[in-house]
C-alpha cells in the first residue's frame, strides 16, 4: 500500500490553472523531493496533502483513506512551514507540546515524546528558551520537532532550508536525511534547490508550470532527463543545448543548427529508431553536459567553436564558446592549459553522452540496439585512435 497517491489532481484558482493532471504515488518510508521553479505549484501540492487546499478535480489517498473525507487534523500529517510558524509567546517545550496538550495526552507521555524528539533534533538544552532567542537553524529544528512529536504518517516540508545560510544548509541537509532514516516516516520535501534534491531524495518529482515533467531517482533524473527543462534544471553549469535540424546530404546524416548553417556530421546509427517514424519532425534539440565535453577532435560529434569567455572558479574553469548563435560551456581543471579568448577550436562529445529531445522538448529515447552499436564502434575507434598515437 502506498503512503500517498495523487490521482488526476488539478487545481484552479478562479480562472488560473495551477496544477494539471498530477499523478504520482509515494511508497512507505520514501523521501520524495518535489522540485521546480517558484510558482510551479509545488507548495500547492503540499498544502493539498495537508488539507489546507482542496483540489478542483481528482482525488488524494493517504494510505487506504480518502483524503477528502478527512479534515487536516485527522490526516495525521506533520508539516514544517517555510517561516517555521513557531508561537512566539511559548517556549520551545511548550511549542513542541502544543498539539499534544490539545489532544489531552497525559503529561508524562508528553514529556517522554518531547525528550525523544529533542534528542533527535539535538535541542536538549534549549527547551526553556523562547523562539525569539533562537537562531534560524534552531528555529527550524523546533519546527521539525513539533511535527515529529505527533509521530505523523507523512512528513511535509515546505522549503525548510531556504531561509538559512549556505553553511547551515549543508549541515541541515545531512541532519534532515539522518532524521528521516532514523524515523522512517514517509517524507515529501519541497524545494527549488537542485543540490538538496540530488543529495537527499530517494526519488525526485520535477514540476514546471503545474505539470509533472519527470519522477525518478536522482540518477535517472540526471542521466536520463525526460524533458529539456529537467535536463537543464539539474547540473551546474546547466546542460548545453541547441536546436538543430536533421538532414541527409550526400547520403550522409548531418545536422545543422536551426539558426545558422554550420553543419555537423552524425553517425546514422544514433537516431535510427527515431527516423523510422513516418514524417518525423526534423527539428530537434541536442544536449550535452559541460563535464562531458573534450577539447579537440575525438570520438563522437565535434563542433567548431570560438572561445568567448572564461570564468575561473579556483578548482576549475568554465570556458564559454560560441557555435553560431549558440553558447556552450565546458570545463577545464585548474591545472589544464587554457585557451585564449578568440581562439577557434574543436570540441567533441562522445555519442553516449548525447541527449536528444524532440520538437516539444521531450526526450527521444535511444534504442538499446543503437547504443550498443555506438559503443561497439566507439571501442573500435578508440583502438584505432590509440594505435594511431
Amino acid at each position, binding site marked *: 500500500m502506498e503512503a500517498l497517491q495523487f490521482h488526476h489532481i488539478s*487545481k*484552479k*484558482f*478562479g480562472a488560473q490553472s495551477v496544477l494539471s493532471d498530477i499523478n504520482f504515488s509515494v511508497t512507505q518510508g520514501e523521501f520524495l523531493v518535489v522540485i521546480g521553479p517558484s510558482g510551479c505549484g509545488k507548495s500547492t501540492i503540499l498544502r493539498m496533502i495537508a*488539507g*489546507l*487546499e*482542496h*483540489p*478542483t*478535480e481528482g482525488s488524494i489517498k493517504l494510505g487506504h483513506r480518502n483524503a*477528502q*473525507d478527512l*479534515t*487536516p487534523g485527522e490526516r495525521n500529517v506533520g508539516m514544517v512551514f517555510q517561516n517555521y510558524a513557531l508561537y512566539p509567546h511559548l517556549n520551545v517545550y511548550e511549542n513542541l507540546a502544543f498539539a499534544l496538550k490539545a489532544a489531552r495526552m497525559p503529561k508524562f507521555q508528553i514529556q517522554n515524546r518531547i525528550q525523544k524528539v529533542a534528542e533527535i533534533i539535538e535541542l536538549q538544552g534549549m527547551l526553556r528558551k523562547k523562539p525569539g532567542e533562537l537562531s534560524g537553524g534552531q528555529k527550524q529544528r523546533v519546527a521539525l520537532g513539533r511535527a515529529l512529536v505527533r509521530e505523523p504518517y507523512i512528513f511535509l516540508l515546505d522549503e525548510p532550508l531556504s531561509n538559512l545560510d549556505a553553511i547551515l544548509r549543508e549541515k541541515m541537509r545531512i541532519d534532515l536525511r539522518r532524521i528521516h532514516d532514523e524515523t522512517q516516516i514517509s517524507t515529501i520535501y519541497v524545494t527549488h534547490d537542485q543540490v538538496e534534491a540530488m543529495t537527499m531524495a530517494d526519488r525526485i518529482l520535477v514540476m514546471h508550470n503545474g505539470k509533472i515533467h519527470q519522477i525518478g531517482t536522482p540518477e535517472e533524473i540526471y542521466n536520463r532527463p525526460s524533458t529539456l527543462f529537467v535536463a537543464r534544471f539539474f547540473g551546474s553549469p546547466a546542460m548545453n543545448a541547441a536546436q538543430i535540424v536533421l538532414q541527409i546530404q550526400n547520403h550522409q546524416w548531418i545536422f545543422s543548427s536551426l539558426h545558422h548553417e554550420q553543419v555537423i556530421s552524425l553517425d546514422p546509427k544514433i537516431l535510427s529508431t527515431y527516423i523510422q517514424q513516418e514524417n518525423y519532425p526534423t527539428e530537434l534539440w541536442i544536449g550535452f553536459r559541460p563535464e562531458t565535453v573534450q577539447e579537440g577532435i575525438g570520438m563522437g560529434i565535434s563542433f567548431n567553436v570560438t572561445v568567448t569567455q572564461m570564468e575561473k572558479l579556483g578548482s576549475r574553469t568554465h570556458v564559454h564558446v560560441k557555435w553560431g548563435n549558440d553558447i556552450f560551456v565546458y570545463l577545464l581543471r585548474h591545472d589544464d592549459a587554457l585557451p585564449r579568448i578568440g581562439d577557434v577550436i574543436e570540441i567533441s562529445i562522445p555519442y553516449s553522452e548525447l541527449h536528444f529531445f524532440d520538437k516539444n522538448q521531450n526526450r527521444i529515447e535511444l534504442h538499446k540496439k543503437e547504443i550498443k552499436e555506438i559503443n561497439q564502434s566507439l571501442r573500435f575507434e578508440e583502438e584505432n585512435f590509440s594505435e594511431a598515437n
Partner: protein
Amino acid sequence: MITVFGSKKNTFRIPWETFIGYGLLLPSMLIFLVFYYVPGVFLAYISFFHWNIFSSDSTFVGLGNFRILFNQPLFWRSLLNSLYYAVVMVPASTMLSLGIALLLREGIHLKRGAVVRSMVFLPHVTPIVATSIIWLWLFDPQFGLFNSVLGYFHFPQPGWLGSTHWAMPSVMIYSLWHSVGLYTVLFLGALTTLPRSVLEAAKVDGAKKWYLFRRVILPLVSPVTFLVIVLSTIDSLQSFSQIYTLTGGPHGGAGGPAFSTTTDSILIYQTAFLYQHFSLASAMSLILFILILALTLMQKWIADRLVFYR
C-alpha cells in the same frame, strides 16, 4: 462531512468552522440589531403614528406629527440653535486644534511637549458632567473666575450662562475645552508622520513658512482635517450632556435663558421625557437622523474631491 469536488470556493473551509464563525459573530450582531438597527428602522415607523408607548394603541397620523412640529416656533428655534452651535464649533475646533498641534509639534518628543499634549488631551477623557460643574462656577457672573479676572482688567463682564446672548457661546467655550484635545492629538499624529523629505525639499527650495503651511502641510494633513471636520460635525449636532448640565438640566429642563441653548437634542429630550410627547419627539428624532446622515455623506462626497491622499 466535507465535499470537496467542484467546490465553488477554492479556499479551504471546514463546514463546522463556518458554524463556529457565525456563532462567534452572533453576540455582537444581535446586540447591534436589537439596540441599534431595529430602533433605527423603528424610528422611521413610529414617527408617522400618534401613540402612547406604554399602552399599545396608536393611530396612524401620517405626516401629522411633522405638521405639528413645523408649526412650533420652538422647533425651528432648536434647529437654528443646533445650526448656530455646529457652524461655530466645527471651524473653531478644527482650526484651534490644528493651531495647537502645529505649536506643539516642535517639542513633542521632549518630555515637556508630551506633558502639554497630555494636559490638552485630559479634558477629553474626563466625564462631562463632572467638569461642567466647575465651569458653572467659572462662568458665574458674580463670583466666577472669568468675571473676576475680566473685572480686574476693567473689561466688560458678560452674563455668561445667564445671559441670552452669551449662554450659547459659553457652552461653546466649554465644548472647545473638552473636545479640542482629541483633535489636537489626531493632528499631531498626522504632523509627526509627515514625510520629512518633502518638507526639507520645500525648505531647500526657499519656501517661506506660510507657503510651506498652505501648499505643503495643509494638503498632507487633509485626511485628518477631513476626519476632524466629520467628527466635530457629528459631535456638535449631537451634543447633549454639557448643554444639559450647564444650562439648568438638573433643575428641570435645561435650554437656557429664553431657549437660547435649546438644541435639537435638548428639545427631543424635553419633549419626550418631560412633556411625554413621544410622537413629536420621534418625528424630531427622525429629522435629526436624516440631517446628520445626509451631512456626513455629503461631507464624504466633498472630501473625495478635495482630500489629498498620499
